[in-house]
């Protein structure tokens, strides 16, 4: 900064060179090079080892070694009965499992939920494998047909299926319904908003900017409250909208704003030449976008979309604040069951819940990384 002035200090002589590092191969060398290459590093290593020891040992003890694997009620998970300190009380999860997955969805109709999950998985897996063929058809099926089929399967009320109120839905079912609806609705909406934001029409652009920045500026929970308490006031009073639907509207609008920003990133990455070439060919705006720009832009932002989905998946937990019982909400409700109230119930619940959320989110984030890497190589 000020180093260029003449008054700066310059060492009078060259400092003696340090001795060359000792080259040692093998595991010993690796340990020396990576863990013990200086005093401070050695201390850090020891502290880290202690940390791992202090976290991992009790965790394994709790989850596996001291855990109770079967039982029928709280008595089986009390230390008096077990005879040693009790770890996780897994029978609690077993007893609550159906509530955690289906909520209060009628017992005899669980197959409908299972079928929906299975359909979703069958359509999603090939969509996520880059090499799988028929991408176009697949995405139409997943984003267009599947939501409709899932709707009729889950809600029922027609085609001879018994109607199931959304009030009795819960658990993982609600979590997935909110997350998947959010992403399926917000993707087209987000694309439109992103296009609008880059539009040359000031009114369109202005509206899109206001919409996007408004939703991005407020917390999701205010959006959920907006959907739950304010939306009914704005609609004609003859309309009664289902509580879950209200939340879905809120979540979709909210994530559309975030999706719009992701898509905009993709649009900006498309070189101008592409637009110009399309214009030169005489393509109109929608053809340019639909055939030339969006296919390239969307492929670029797949990692962003997946990351958005992870965020949305985690944010679904917020619906419990507007008394809709998602996976976490059902777990929290299960804590209140006196038949299972033991000192370890809470920790068992958190452990199970944490593992489930982690598995979902972690695998998605790995997938997004995988796609990102693939995209990078194809670009170079």
């Amino acid at each position: 900064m000020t180093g260029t002035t003449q008054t700066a200090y310059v060492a009078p002589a060259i400092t003696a060179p340090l001795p060359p590092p000792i080259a040692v191969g093998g595991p010993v060398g690796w340990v020396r090079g990576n863990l013990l290459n200086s005093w401070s590093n050695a201390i850090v290593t020891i502290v880290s080892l202690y940390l791992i020891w202090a976290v991992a040992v009790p965790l394994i003890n709790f989850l596996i070694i001291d855990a109770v694997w079967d039982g029928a009620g709280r008595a089986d998970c009390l230390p008096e009965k077990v005879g040693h300190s009790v770890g996780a009380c897994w029978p609690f999860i077993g007893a609550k499992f159906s509530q955690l997955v289906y909520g209060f969805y009628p017992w005899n109709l669980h197959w409908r939920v299972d079928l929906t999950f299975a359909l979703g998985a069958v359509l999603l897996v090939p969509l996520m494998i880059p090499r799988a063929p028929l991408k176009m058809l697949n995405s139409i099926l997943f984003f267009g047909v599947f939501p409709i089929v899932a709707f009729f399967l889950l809600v029922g009320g027609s085609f001879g299926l018994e109607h199931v109120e959304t009030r009795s839905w819960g658990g993982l079912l609600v979590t997935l319904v909110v997350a998947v609806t959010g992403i399926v609705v917000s993707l087209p909406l987000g694309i439109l908003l992103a296009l609008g934001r880059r539009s040359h029409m000031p009114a369109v652009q202005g509206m899109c900017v206001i919409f996007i920045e408004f939703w991005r500026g407020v917390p999701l929970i205010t959006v959920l409250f907006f959907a739950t308490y304010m939306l009914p006031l704005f609609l004609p009073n003859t309309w009664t909208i289902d509580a879950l639907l209200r939340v879905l509207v809120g979540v979709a609008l909210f994530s559309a704003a975030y999706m719009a920003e992701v898509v905009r990133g993709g649009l900006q990455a498309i070189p101008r030449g592409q637009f110009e070439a399309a214009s030169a060919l005489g393509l109109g705006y929608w053809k340019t976008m639909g055939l030339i720009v969006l296919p390239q832009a969307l492929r670029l932002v797949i990692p962003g979309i997946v990351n958005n989905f992870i965020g949305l998946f985690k944010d679904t937990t917020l619906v419990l604040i507007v008394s809709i019982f998602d996976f976490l909400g059902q777990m929290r409700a299960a804590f209140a069951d006196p038949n299972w109230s033991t000192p370890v119930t809470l920790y068992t619940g958190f452990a199970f819940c944490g593992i489930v959320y982690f598995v979902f989110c972690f695998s998605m984030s790995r997938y997004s990384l995988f796609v990102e890497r693939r995209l990078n190589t194809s670009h170079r």
Partner: protein
Amino acid sequence: MTGEREGPAARPRLAVLYNPKLRGIFYQLVLLAIMVWLGIEFALNAKTNLQAQKIATGFGFLDNTAGFGVNQSLIAYQESDTYGRVFFVGLLNTLVVSAFGIALATAIGFLVGVARLSNNWLIARLAGVYVEVIRNLPLLFQILFWYLAVLGALPAPRNAISVLDGVFLSNRGIAVPRPLFGEGSGLVLAAFAAGIVVTLMLRFWAQARQEKTGQQFPLGCAAAGLILGLPLLVMIAAGFPIGFELPQLRGFNFVGGVTMIPEFTALLIALSTYTAAFIAEIVRSGIQAVSRGQTEAAYSLGLKPGRTMSMVVIPQAMRVIIPPLTSQYLNLTKNSSLAVGIGYPDLFAVFAGTTLNQTGQAIEILAVTMAVYLVISLITSALMNWYNSRLQLVER
């Protein structure tokens, strides 16, 4: 369509129909009309619905008596105060948890981010595990975990864990001594301020000297002596004017001192550790964005790794770090509204929660709440943009 009709009249019509400018204006007018229609429709519906449900309108409710208690307030508050005051109580609670959260998250985030790039394999892995685990669990889950499983597991006040008989940890919160400023404590505070000023001047001088002669000055020891030692000396001389009010167990709870309620603590820990995981990733990518040559050049000049990091790499990385960091700060502030899940009386819980429930005035209350978060967002990003532009100027 119009191709068959050949006449002078057809051309201008075609031109008007296909004039992109006019078409743009037409589309925009249609869009605006739809928006206006929607707005009017909403307003009319709201009016009928509010009348049907006999819900009051306007902001008159802000002057009504709230009538409910709040368990943490930075300003004086009692049940006979108005909803307007409740709003400020909540707002301050939101701001205080966000401010502490941002400071803590930045500290942890930088530490973990740097640790992830450490040449110590173990600590790098450990930091990686921290980031992956924290980032992949929902924030509300973590808040509930800290609140129910960690802080809820602390003993009752009667069996509180005591640290040096001054700090007490119980399931009612963390009680710490409160400083009492007696006569002459102004002198001590003045000495403290003087210590800081002198240290800053010393630092300036030491830097100038180092530039000239290469001699370094043991600034750390001097600073400690000036900032801590000087006030201590003054305090002894003045006969200990600053005392401490220790928390004491009386009746049901700890009385005296300052109590950090567990709702605050849980929210603060969860918010800052969660955001820190994201900040760590930002810091890591920021540092990696600085070319390796910079580090190598610094090493070849003989700078130690720590100094290389703090004087060469981080200042350059900051340019990459600041923009995403801003959005993390905003996220933290917005996420503080999850307080409602554990009963911390933030703006959302006391205003959009309790007040909304008591008055039923959803439109006014939610509009105000959303506006507050929007304003906080705008101010934060404005501040960070200003900082960012300053940073860029210094660099160039």
